């Protein structure tokens, strides 16, 4: 097949994309394999803000590295802006850019403006146009008053804003945002999300692939979301469609007071109870319970009373992407991350 004709309307396409890392084992000289991505098939049309949602270590960053020409796949193929990322990386690079959250870029001794100008040079943008564009974007993101500050003197949040301008400045056809709001405070994260949305709204041909492990971010920003876990895509659709999968469930949040440990098994075994999570919060026990239908609720309350747990509040909740994740994986995202625990290896991150 000729990739150009088939891929013209697609910003990103992957076919059975896999990546296996070789990592050192516990014994000297022992090498083990870790599957970071397995048979990923994605088609992202131009103009879409596509989200990859998954816990740390799911394979999001590995996918971004492959698509941005930093890493070769072990198997399968990938195209970005119509070009093969392995064989035609020279053609991919002028068309993309990437911003990773929590990473610094540029040089501490240069000012914000100077750092950005330098990166503009690497993309062949003439100086005058680069400066105009930098100024506009700095104003848009609220960093114009710090343009002449050395980047080493910026706070983490402001440094990340500079990093974001660096990525958007070259007006890439496809932009990769890897956890763009990681480590930012609530206000800064909100500003960054607004900036991203505005940038997409300005030009319908722009495409963003965004990875995040914040459910709310994916819901708020993305046209479509893929849920990724242990290197596999478990579901891929619009946030609304994904949530419809769990729409038939009734999800309740209950806050109870109890003197003795709760027998959660007894609750889970009630007919009609699909899932139950509980955690201590504000001096009480918070239960989040998914039911096959609302009519099951009296049974739950009855069981709580039997266990001498007093109900303090009860709230029905709309399903979220978190519920979709739980339905697909069986665990909440934070529980997955906790389970991974110390399994981190610098060479195998995600």
């Amino acid at each position: 097949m000729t990739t150009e004709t088939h891929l013209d309307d697609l910003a990103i396409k992957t076919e059975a994309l896999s990546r296996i890392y070789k990592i050192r084992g516990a014994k000297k000289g022992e090498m083990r394999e870790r599957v970071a991505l397995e048979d990923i098939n994605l088609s992202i049309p131009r103009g879409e803000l596509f989200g990859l949602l998954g816990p740390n270590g799911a394979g999001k960053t590995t996918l971004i590295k492959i698509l941005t020409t930093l890493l070769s796949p072990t198997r399968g193929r990938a195209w970005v802006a119509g070009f093969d990322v392995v064989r035609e990386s020279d053609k991919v690079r002028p068309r993309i850019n990437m911003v990773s959250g929590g990473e610094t870029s540029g040089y501490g001794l240069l000012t914000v403006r100077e750092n950005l100008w330098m990166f503009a040079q690497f993309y062949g943008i003439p100086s005058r146009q680069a400066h105009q564009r930098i100024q506009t974007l700095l104003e848009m993101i609220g960093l114009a008053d710090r343009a002449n500050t050395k980047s080493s003197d910026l706070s983490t949040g402001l440094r990340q804003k500079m990093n974001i301008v660096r990525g958007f400045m070259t007006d890439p056809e496809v932009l990769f945002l890897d956890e763009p709001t990681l480590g930012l405070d609530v206000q800064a994260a909100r500003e960054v999300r607004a900036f991203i949305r505005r940038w997409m709204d300005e030009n319908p041909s722009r495409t963003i692939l965004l990875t995040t492990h914040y459910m709310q971010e994916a819901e708020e920003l993305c046209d479509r979301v893929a849920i990724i876990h242990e290197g596999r895509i478990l579901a891929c659709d619009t946030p609304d469609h994904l949530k419809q999968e769990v729409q038939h469930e009734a999800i309740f949040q209950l806050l109870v007071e109890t003197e003795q440990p709760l027998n959660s098994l007894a609750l889970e075994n009630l007919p009609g109870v699909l899932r139950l999570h509980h955690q201590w919060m504000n001096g009480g026990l918070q239960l989040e319970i998914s039911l096959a239908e609302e009519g099951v609720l009296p049974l739950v309350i009855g069981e709580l009373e039997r266990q001498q747990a007093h109900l303090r509040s009860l709230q029905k909740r709309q399903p979220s992407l978190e519920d979709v994740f739980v339905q697909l994986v069986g665990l909440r995202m934070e529980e997955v991350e906790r389970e991974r625990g110390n399994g981190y290896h610098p060479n195998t991150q995600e």
Partner: protein
Amino acid sequence: MLRSPAFRSFRMAAWLGWQIESNWTDPFLFAIYSIIKPLAAAGILVVMYRVVTQQAFDTPMFAYLYLGNAFYQYVSAVTTGVSWAVIDDREHYRTLKYIYVAPLNIPLYLFGRGVARFLTTSFAVLIIILFGVGFLKMPLALSTIQWPLLIVSLVLGTLMLGLVGLILAGITLLTARHSYYIGDAVAGALFLFTGAIFPLEVLPAYLRPIGYALPITYWLELMRRALVGRVAQAFPTFSALSDGQLLALLALMTLALGIISLVVFRWCERLARERGLIDYTSNY
């Protein structure tokens, strides 16, 4: 004492320094790596000497410059070991801020970081001397070595070099990461003044006082005297001073240097805090 913060700082830093210096390759390659540089530095002087004197290696002059150069390896190794730790921890590992907030004694931590280079350099110096004796007929006999003087001088000299390193570490706290090792640059320059490879008398009269003011000059003379007393006697620089007097001078200078280096380091540290440079990343 073994549980004191000071000892803990030193021991932990020495262990860390050794890991950083050595764990990038296997021990054999590391040993080769550790001796190639100093051997090449000695080789330069050997060739220079041979070119001009047509291989007269059994002269006092050759032993003077060969041994002076060999022990001079400690100067750049120890001063760099102590001062580079600031750059390495601040800009590379980005741990300097954590070191500062931990209950550690920073000068002793930096001394500890210099231990690895001291050990590898000791190995290299030994190889250089053995090479000189074995292949270049340098006049050195085990029976004439003054061991107590050698050991005391080496210990005192190492402490003195560590203190020079501490001053450089203080300066490093205030400067950006440039492309050179500050210890190497300073050691390279002091090479001229300390009578390492030629007697101070060769220098113009106006430069000699610098040499007399530097403890390294006295230390190198002591090391030569301890190893090859006859060679040292052939040069007039310190002929008026006995071994004991030289040692006392070195001890006094080290003491003075100790005070100066602590004052300078604390002062630089204070400035670095004021300017917010403890967690500075200056790459350019």
